[in-house]
């Protein structure tokens, strides 16, 4: 490993979510500098990466968003296999949240609504590039084991700071009474 051994390697991942949790992460403002001293972001939609691939092993994977598509399933298995601690960040990752609101409807009806009914030019359901939707949107822990659950839509910057500080210190953050769904 080229990294200094003292630094904690962190990956952040964005699945089916609105990116609000990542925005909240950035909301840590000047505390980001402090965190950066102890943390190495090795994979994230927020940073420029030298490689497109997920590293062989990261210490902490922070995942935003629910599991909605075949691609999400593949990704989350890959992430779980290559991460020591998996943090579900925000209500979509923890509980499915807003993306699950499509669950009462059939996938073909949703696709038809999105790609055919409301489209004027070349209405068609894509069968390439866009990953296949799963029948139900699910939270991450229904697919792979999750180590830390951070509720909130989005979780506040303070909460995220607390979680990262605890993880950097080698502790499992105890979020009892610190978080709640929805806020």
């Amino acid at each position: 490993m080229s990294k200094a051994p003292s630094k904690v390697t962190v990956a952040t991942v964005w699945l089916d979510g609105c990116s609000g949790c990542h925005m909240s992460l950035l909301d840590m403002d000047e505390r980001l500098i402090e965190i950066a001293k102890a943390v190495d972001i090795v994979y994230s939609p927020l940073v420029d990466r030298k490689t497109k691939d997920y590293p062989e092993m990261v210490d902490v994977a922070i995942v935003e968003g629910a599991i909605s598509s075949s691609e999400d399933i593949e990704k989350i298995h890959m992430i779980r296999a290559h991460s020591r601690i998996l943090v579900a960040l925000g209500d979509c990752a923890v509980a499915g949240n807003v993306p699950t609101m499509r669950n009462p409807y059939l996938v073909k009806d949703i696709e038809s609504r999105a790609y055919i009914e409301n489209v004027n030019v070349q209405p068609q359901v894509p069968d390439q590039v866009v990953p296949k939707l799963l029948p139900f949107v699910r939270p991450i822990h229904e697919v792979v084991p999750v180590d830390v659950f951070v509720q909130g839509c989005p979780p506040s910057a303070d909460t995220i700071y607390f979680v990262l500080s605890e993880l950097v210190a080698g502790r499992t953050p105890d979020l009892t009474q610190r978080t709640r769904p929805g806020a």
Partner: protein
Amino acid sequence: MATAVRSRIRTLKIDGRDVSAREDETILELAEENGIFIPTLCRIEGLSLVGACRLCLVEVAGMNKLVPACLTYATEGMEVFTDSERLRNYRRMILELLFSEGNHICAICVSNGKCELQALAQRLGMDHVRFANLQQERLVDMTHERFVVDRNRCILCARCVRVCDEIEWAHTWDIKGRGVDARVITDLDTPWGESDTCTSCGKCVRVCPVGAIVEKGRAVGEMAKRHDFLPHLAKMREAKK
């Protein structure tokens, strides 16, 4: 009886603390008097007790069954435990079951931040739900001029049924079906807006602990509710009977 019955006094222990009680006081009332927190959802002051949510179950020394604090009266020498590890696990799991039953997406609920279920989830440390959602679809009724009932957010505490029957004396609300198919209905399961028993008093809105029965036109997090009117009204109704 012509004269008031004198109530006997009991002494007992709650969580190791000595407390005294009148014989007609429940463990829940005593706990509240003494600043001991016991979670509740179906109970609301001023309405009859149903013992349905099972969140207020407590342990009593010498009894192998858990008892609902809201319906169990103080007895002499009783030793009550309200906050064991076992009870905490049960309470969290009961909340998980509730969350898994319907749509409890707080982020887009008018009661976000003002919801008893959400507050309990935070207080009791429910950080995720281990059960897959039951994926039920229940009817949302927006036919009433001023109110909405979203049954997907309903936790079947039956407060609306009780307040409508016991205080408003209208009995517009009731419950239909059983098991996970049970749901609150207005009249004989006809649209709320067409109800000829509903007086549009809005008491059901005010006692609903979640975002199931709400006022129209509220945005996310706007639906604050107050039910401090209830105990007074309940007393007046009692006197009228």
